[in-house]
Structure formats: structure tokens, C-alpha cells
């Protein structure tokens, strides 16, 4: 049996496998070091960071929905400076590949945060969060306008040589056109999807379940929409795609990859099963062996649309 190659490259970021922990679903990574060796993940994406510390929204911050959950955390975070001094050295010590999810209320803040992180030791890539649906000033104004997306990505491109990965919102008519804007602006990859703007109501109290009224929907419920968006973006751009949305097992990872994702992120599933990582790796290994695939990258975008799957195969 030849060695199995699961590696993925995004600019200078080389990952041993396509499995990344999604922003906001894995703390700063260190919270999970008891349950998984962080160096075995493709990468760890930090919680979204602004320049300054933020307290986020009041509780209630989450609500469960069918096969999904809403969140409106409001980007509680320690800010980029404390991240660099308190978390980054520990992440380096654990040999985690660290991707920092960056936010801004203005173009200048994005650029500033990117610049500061580019000078720090141990940051492997920047994921540009222009898609948080939960706070008005969280960059979504950039993520819902093609010019805004182009503008923020090209401004950050000028100040950093780190790989930059704009994270796209699904709450638009055509995510593929945003993927194109990001590629044109010099992005090394795109990641999608962030959460879907959604809400839930307690009908007995006639009040919203979240203090922020609306929040972002994640989890398996959204997977079929996210897979479609990845597939559409794959037709539109050449740069790597980091796919996510409701991945719960290795088949879901493969679904995103076959649709066109080069790597994937796992978010909500960490809450349900923090020991998921070993299972995902084992599942991918088994699939590669059964299908005699030596380079996992070979299945990226390999969807055969000439006929549907046989229902009774």
C-alpha cells in the first residue's frame, strides 16, 4: 500500500490534511488540547479578532434548531494584542498551524489587524471575516458588496505576504461573484460558508430566543446549501476553496471536496463530538484505501454530473 497523501497547500500554508477547525467553534484552539493533539489538524482557525478586546452580546447567545443551531455571540474576543502575547506562543509550542480570523469595523481596522499579525511569529494565514451576520459593524457591509469585498481584500493584500483567505457569506444571491471579486483582489483562497442569517422565537413568551434577535445558522441543516455554493464557486474561480457548513463525519468532508473544496472546516460538530478529528482522519483513510486513491486532492471537484447516483446501488 502506497502512502496516502492528504496534504493541501494554500500559498505558503502547507497542511498535512484538509481538516481545519472553524473559527468561533474551537475557542483559541487551546481549549481543545486535552481532547486532540492540535498538530494533527490541518489547521486551527482562531475565534474572530478585532484590534481591541470585545465583550460580545448578552446571553442568550445560542439556540438549537432542527439539525442546526443559531448563534449570536457577538464576537467576544481578547483582541489581537492579547492573542499574540497569550495564545500564539502556546499554539506554536503545540505546533498547530494557526490561521487567524480577522474582523474590523472599518477598512483601516482590517488592515491594521492584518499588519500586526503579519509581524507576529507563528501566524500561518489570515482568514478575513467579512461575513459575520451577528453584528452590524462586523464586516458584513464589506461581505455583501462586491466592491467592498474587492476593496478589503486588496487593501490587506498590500500589507501582508501571509496567505489571505476571505470568508464569504451565504446570505447573497450569488456567492460565486464574491468568490471572483476575492480572487481578482489577490486572495490566496476563499472560505465559505459563514452562517445563514436566521432567527427563532419562543412562542409562549413571544420573544426571540437570542438577545440579538437574529443570529447565524450553522450545522448539518445548512450543508446542502453550502455544498451547492462551493460547487458554484468551483466553476468560477481557480484558487483553493475551503468549504464548510454542517460537516459531521468523513462523508460530509468528501461531499465538500467532490463539490470542489480543497480543504474543509469543521465548526458546530466540535460541540457535538469534540473527539471528531480522529474519526474524520480514519474515515478519510478508509475511503482512500477502498477507492485506491493515493492523493486525496484528486477528488477535488470530481463530481460526475452525467447521471445521478443509483439509488439502489
Amino acid at each position, binding site marked *: 500500500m502506497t502512502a496516502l497523501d492528504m496534504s493541501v497547500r494554500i500559498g505558503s500554508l502547507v497542511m498535512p490534511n484538509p481538516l481545519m477547525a472553524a473559527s468561533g467553534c474551537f475557542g483559541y484552539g487551546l*481549549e481543545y*488540547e486535552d481532547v486532540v493533539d492540535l498538530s494533527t489538524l490541518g489547521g486551527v482557525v482562531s475565534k474572530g479578532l478585532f484590534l481591541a478586546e470585545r465583550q460580545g452580546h448578552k446571553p442568550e447567545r445560542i439556540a438549537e434548531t432542527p439539525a442546526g443551531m443559531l448563534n449570536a455571540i457577538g464576537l467576544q474576543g481578547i483582541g489581537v494584542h492579547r492573542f499574540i502575547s497569550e495564545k500564539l506562543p502556546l499554539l506554536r509550542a503545540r505546533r498547530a498551524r494557526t490561521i487567524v480570523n480577522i474582523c474590523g469595523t472599518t477598512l483601516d481596522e482590517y488592515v491594521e489587524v492584518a499588519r500586526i499579525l503579519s509581524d507576529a511569529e507563528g501566524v500561518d494565514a489570515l482568514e478575513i471575516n467579512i461575513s459575520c451576520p451577528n453584528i452590524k459593524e462586523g464586516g458584513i457591509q464589506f461581505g455583501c458588496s462586491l466592491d467592498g469585498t474587492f476593496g478589503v481584500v486588496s487593501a490587506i493584500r498590500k500589507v501582508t505576504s501571509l496567505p489571505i483567505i476571505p470568508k464569504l457569506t451565504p446570505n447573497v444571491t450569488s456567492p460565486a461573484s464574491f468568490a471572483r471579486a476575492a480572487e481578482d483582489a489577490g486572495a490566496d483562497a476563499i472560505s465559505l460558508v459563514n452562517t445563514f442569517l436566521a432567527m427563532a422565537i419562543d412562542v409562549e413568551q413571544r420573544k426571540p430566543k437570542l438577545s440579538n434577535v437574529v443570529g447565524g445558522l450553522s450545522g448539518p441543516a445548512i450543508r446542502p446549501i453550502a455544498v451547492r455554493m462551493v460547487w458554484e464557486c468551483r466553476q468560477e474561480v481557480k484558487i483553493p476553496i475551503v468549504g464548510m457548513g454542517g460537516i459531521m463525519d468523513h462523508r460530509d468532508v468528501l461531499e465538500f471536496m467532490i463539490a470542489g473544496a480543497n480543504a474543509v472546516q469543521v465548526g458546530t460538530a466540535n*460541540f457535538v463530538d469534540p473527539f471528531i478529528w480522529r474519526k474524520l482522519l480514519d474515515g478519510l483513510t478508509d475511503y482512500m484505501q477502498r477507492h485506491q486513491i493515493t492523493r486525496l486532492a484528486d477528488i477535488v471537484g470530481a463530481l460526475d454530473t452525467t447521471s445521478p447516483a443509483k439509488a439502489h446501488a
Partner: protein
Amino acid sequence: MTRTTPSGFCRHDILSPVPPVDVRATVISNVRLSRDYNVLTIAAPEVGALTEPGQFVMLKTTDASDPMLRRPFSVFEVLRDDLGTVRAISILNKRAGRTTGLLYGLEAGDPVWCLGPLGLPFNPPSSGEAWMVAGGVGLAPFATLAEALVALQVPTTLFYGARTADELYYLEFFDRLGVKLVLTTEDGGAGVKGRVTGPLEESLKGLGGPNLVTVYACGPEPMLAAVARLAERYGQPSEVSMERTMGCGLGGCYSCVVPVKHADGQTRYVRSCIGGPVFDGATVVWE
């Protein structure tokens, strides 16, 4: 019990915890105490062997995605066989919604996914007596705490309030351990009529000075706030176990935050799954 700092900001900065385990446990028994309360015993010895009083587990009754998230429950009892080996844990469950409803309905042989132990446990009192204050299902963490306190020969009292006499459970258990019981019911059907904070305040008044008892509280948030304020007023330390909506139990999601006054005078949201659920009552900012 190990000494820990329950009001710490991030677990990883201050102590090295025992890593939690996740087991697909089997239900051993399910005793319905009433229309809404049950004691569910599950074969999760790996979890029980590691659990300290006040810690919790995250449970799920299905591996399908609806319901999807686990729910937090205090470990009620750690059950040992005759040789002292841990065989199971139990949960004191109160029906509140879907998962608690499903837990109520389980039968022996059914599977339960159990992740734990999680969170910061109670601290033993530095000196003097221990007073436990429980409201309703807030009794849950006090069975194991009482055992630990009795083992340390700490004189222990349980102030325990419920709506009606039927909803006062496990009195014999505490009695047998030598725990002094002070009961209240809202309808006066047993013990003192009214809220549990009534007799608590009477007792606090009767104390000769500060730092003579450590007050441990678990129950609805208004009760916790009242207990923490009373303890402060009478100069006694308190530890409160906070109940927050939890998505993960491991510090991943930031759903479970409690506003806590920090040493620098700032109030910050602390994740109660890893910086709690047990907090120093004096540091919590009650809303």
C-alpha cells in the same frame, strides 16, 4: 478534592484538568420520582471515576442530528460496587424541554452519550462549616459534595427548598450521611413555608462572626443571587453553581457566559463551562 480557583478566567491558565472522556453509556435504571423528576443511572464508570463534586457532564440521547447538541447535567451520584470500584453515575433530571424529556423516557438498555467530567468543582471550606443551599433540581450537585464534606469531617447542613413536599427528594440519603436538613416548601407542605432563603438568613443572622461557614448554592438564578448577597452581607464566603445555556461544555462556543468582576475591577464575560459552573458568589455580577 483538589484545590482549584473557580473564578479563574481560563482553565488552561490556572490548572491542568483531567481530560474529559466521551462514552456511549448504557442506561442501567431509570427511576421516575414524579411526573417531572427522575434519576437516571448510566454505566459511565470512566466518567464517574474522575468526577469531583460540582462537575458536570454533557449528555445526548441520540447520534442523529435532531436534537443535535448535548445538554449539561450535574453528576448526581457516583455509584460504586461492594469493592469500591466505580460502576456508574446517576443524573437527577427534571423535564424542561426536549432532551430532558427524552432522558425522562429512557429505559434500561438504551444508549446515552456522556462527555465528562467537565467544569470546575466546588472547593472545600477553608475552615468551619459547610451550608449547602438547594432549590428544586439544584439539589443535583450536593449528593457528591455532601459525601466529600462528610469524608473531610466538615459539619454540613442542607437548606433545601421545593414547591411541594413531594418534590423534596433523597432526604434519607442526606440524613444517613449525617447532614443536617433544613427544609422549605412554597405551600408549607413540609418544613418551613416559603423560600429557602428565609431559614438561610435566620441561620446567617445567628452566626457569631465572618468566615465561619462556606455557603454552597445551586438552583434558579434569582435564588443564587439572593444567597450570594446574603452570604456577603453576613461576611461568609459563597460558591454558586450557575446554570447557563451551553453549546459545548469545553470552552469552544462562548455561549455560556457569566459576567464576573475581575481583580482589575473590570467586569468580563467568563465561560461558565470552563471558568465555572462554580463561581465565587461575590464575583458574579447579578443582572
